[in-house]
């Protein structure tokens, strides 16, 4: 077993501590260790990773293995950022008694993901503090879509049964403001129920999964190459990041390494995606506090990036660019010059935009101390990405788990502890300028050569993790291959799934008129969450 030295010593330590229960451990990649254990050990391992190894639960997901193993498997994905490694603890759940002890009480980060497993697999998470349905709304029939005996194209009977009962907040003068799922702006659907007394928000209940499209089930029905296009459509503003995470996973399973030029072009595209979205968020945040001039500048700059995207890849949102084994389109010298010019010119214009924002005292007044997410709460909820870094969580997959070209470029990761809207803007601001620096470094050292490596039929029964730091935060795709160049499972984890509950915490005590700007400062994906 080829393992990172730090992971090897971790495994030795665990063996020493828990005895010889890890004989089935395997590592398809040096930084990716699988520990098949019995359910009783899951809690103890969780506590060990959290307390001794600065680990965190980055994902919880299940798989229907009743065909081959007569059990469901539940995986706990731990990211050990300090030693740059992932550990996947695999726990069997007997088919005849589909129950597993919930981790949510100890690790609130697992909350929604465990409920999702309940909804989609029918595995009871015993001891979950709020075991109500989430993915499948209350009025769905009793079905478990990710079980193998459920057909993707099942025609379900009309909605029946009780509608969702929202939590009640009681007290003198408390009233409730329901918003959504169809919102006032051009945004995705979700339902927010504010309980307020006077102006301050006492409690915000989120109800999501309105755009659940059965994507994970759909992956199981598609040939792997078509999966790349589906991955592009998981979350529209992160299409390239999701598709690249998917490609990483497939390439690892196939044992194929993309050529250096492909890695460089991927890095360029990921940074372009980050730039377009960060700049757009600048504008959207300004709009929500009525500074529309800055929004207009931001939209103009974002349009520049999208047009360059189109010139480089044929699509404004980089659709169609990702491909197995590399990327689909090469950049010629003219296109590279265009990109270099964009980096220089846009950087100047972004400086102007930042100057404009800083010149507005009202803006700062509205953003500072608004929507505070404390580092403690952020850590408990496992908040990642921009919101995590604004609340003291020093991590970035580009630095801690570098892939593509990221190990060959220099950049810093901005981290703040204030956790307010202002600092979520600050994280974006620093990242925008880091992105320009990354673009320049890649362009200066752009390798020559092919842009794709041949990925033939992927061998069956291989597992692999793909991960990308998208502009919003860390994206994971976990795959398990099946015969015939197909997948038996593809788990998609968008950072939004992890971060939504933090919005409820951040808005508490703020006033409803500030909700749009707090929400926008997180800018979470509904489509990526709901899948």
């Amino acid at each position, binding site marked *: 077993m080829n393992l990172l030295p730090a992971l090897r010593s971790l495994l030795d330590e665990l063996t020493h501590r828990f005895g010889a229960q890890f004989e089935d451990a395997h590592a398809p990649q040096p930084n990716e260790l699988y520990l098949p254990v019995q359910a009783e050990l899951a809690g103890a391992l969780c506590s060990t990773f959290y307390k001794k190894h600065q680990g965190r639960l980055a994902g919880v997901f299940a798989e229907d293995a009743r065909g081959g193993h007569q059990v469901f498997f539940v995986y706990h994905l731990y990211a050990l950022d300090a030693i740059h490694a992932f550990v996947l603890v695999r726990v069997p759940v007997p088919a005849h008694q589909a129950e597993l002890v919930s981790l949510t009480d100890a690790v609130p980060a697992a909350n929604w993901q465990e409920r999702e497993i309940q909804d989609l697999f029918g595995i009871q998470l015993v001891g979950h503090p709020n075991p109500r349905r989430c993915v499948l709304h209350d009025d769905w029939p009793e079905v478990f879509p990710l079980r193998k005996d459920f057909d993707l194209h099942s025609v379900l009977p009309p909605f029946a049964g009780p509608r969702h009962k929202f939590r009640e907040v009681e007290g003198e003068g408390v009233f409730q403001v329901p918003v959504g799922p169809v919102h006032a702006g051009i945004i995705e659907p979700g339902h927010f129920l504010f309980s307020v007394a006077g102006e301050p928000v006492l409690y915000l209940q989120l109800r999501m999964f309105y755009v659940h499209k059965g994507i994970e089930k759909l992956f199981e029905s598609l040939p792997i190459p078509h999966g790349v296009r589906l991955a592009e459509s998981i979350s529209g503003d992160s299409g390239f990041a999701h598709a690249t995470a998917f490609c990483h996973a497939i390439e690892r399973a196939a044992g194929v390494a993309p050529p250096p030029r492909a890695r460089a072009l991927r890095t360029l595209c990921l940074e372009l995606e980050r730039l377009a979205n960060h700049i757009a968020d600048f504008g959207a945040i300004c709009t929500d506090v009525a500074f529309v001039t800055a929004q207009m500048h931001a939209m103009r700059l*974002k349009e520049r990036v999208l047009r360059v995207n189109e010139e480089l890849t044929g699509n404004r949102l980089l659709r169609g660019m990702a491909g197995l084994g590399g990327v689909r389109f090469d950049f010629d010298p003219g296109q590279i010059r265009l990109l270099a010019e964009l980096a220089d010119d846009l950087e100047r214009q972004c400086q102007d935009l930042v100057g404009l924002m800083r*010149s507005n005292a009202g803006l700062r007044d509205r953003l500072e101390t608004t929507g505070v997410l404390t580092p403690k709460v952020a850590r408990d909820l496992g908040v990642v990405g921009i919101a995590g870094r604004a609340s003291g969580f020093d991590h970035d997959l580009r630095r801690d788990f570098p892939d593509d070209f990221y190990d060959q470029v220099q950049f810093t990761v901005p981290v703040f502890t204030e956790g307010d809207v202002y600092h979520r803007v600050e994280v974006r601001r620093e990242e925008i300028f880091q992105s320009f620096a990354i673009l320049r470094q890649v362009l200066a050292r752009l390798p020559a050569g092919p842009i794709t490596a041949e990925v033939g039929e992927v061998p069956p029964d291989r597992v692999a993790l793909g991960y990308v730091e998208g502009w919003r935060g860390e994206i994971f795709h976990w795959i398990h291959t099946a015969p015939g160049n197909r997948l038996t499972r593809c788990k998609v984890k968008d950072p939004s799934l992890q971060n939504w509950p933090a919005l409820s915490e951040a808005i508490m005590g703020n006033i409803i008129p500030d909700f749009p700007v707090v929400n926008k400062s997180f800018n979470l994906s509904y489509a990526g969450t709901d899948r």
Partner: protein
Amino acid sequence: MFETLRQSLKIGVVTTSYPDTPAEVSRRARGKPEIDWANWRDARPAAAVCPTGAIECRDEAGTLAATRTATLDLGKCIFCGLCADVDPAIRMTPQCELAARSRQGLRHTAQYALNDNGTHQRLLATPPAAASAEALAAAGRELQTRIQSLLGRSLHIREVDAGSCNGCEVEIHGLNSPVYDLERFGIHFVASPRHADMLLVTGPVTRNMELALRKTYAATPDPRLVVAVGACGCSGGIFGVNYATRGAVDAVIPVDVYIPGCPPNPHALLHGILLAIGRLSPYASSPTAAPKSGRALFQNPAPPQD
């Protein structure tokens, strides 16, 4: 304040003059796939790589000879260009103004004589979209007059995301940017369906959003227009119909105009919206075929060009 003014003056006007001038898209942009129908010898490789079934072929034994019906459905196409990679008879063009008043108007079909080895040979028929062109044109003129008299020159749009990946929303947002500036047409996005003349709906319609979409439609006062946006809105796109989605918008509410794309760019969206309210000639293949002044857009359409 001074800084704000200085920057605005420095930048000047950035608004496009589309649709008076052609769409500003890169020549590398992947828009409509052009198929050389007459010389297409085998539709199967393209159909095999198409992730959404936009290219399809159906073989029939027939009484005299076996035939194949090959279809290109722009309502399903996500413009990835994989078909053009494997088939020299297909070429991706930058053409992005593809909106149509009917779902059928997005389908292009051809019939071929089938060879024994599975390739096809002779083009037997291209049931053209122009088959009922005259009837369609008359209906279009009538609709246009009706819409113009009802909505005049102003239009209020309520956008409804009924299940999209948010890609279409990214581009719809672009319409509000100073570059596309939808307001120059007197068109606004409004916060409530009760204020709206048009619903701009992205899809696929999920099971969890179906009721909300129906209620939004019911809340929109008559006369109302519905525009389905993107491959998913037109057909269900890559998601199709499954346990969690109903697919196309028109599976749930009636649709007036379909805008293909994945996602459609702001030009394509503008083209579709203007088509829906009769401010573009629905007969010209492209609104830019015969350049018009902005004012002419508000007058009666030119007679059909072809």
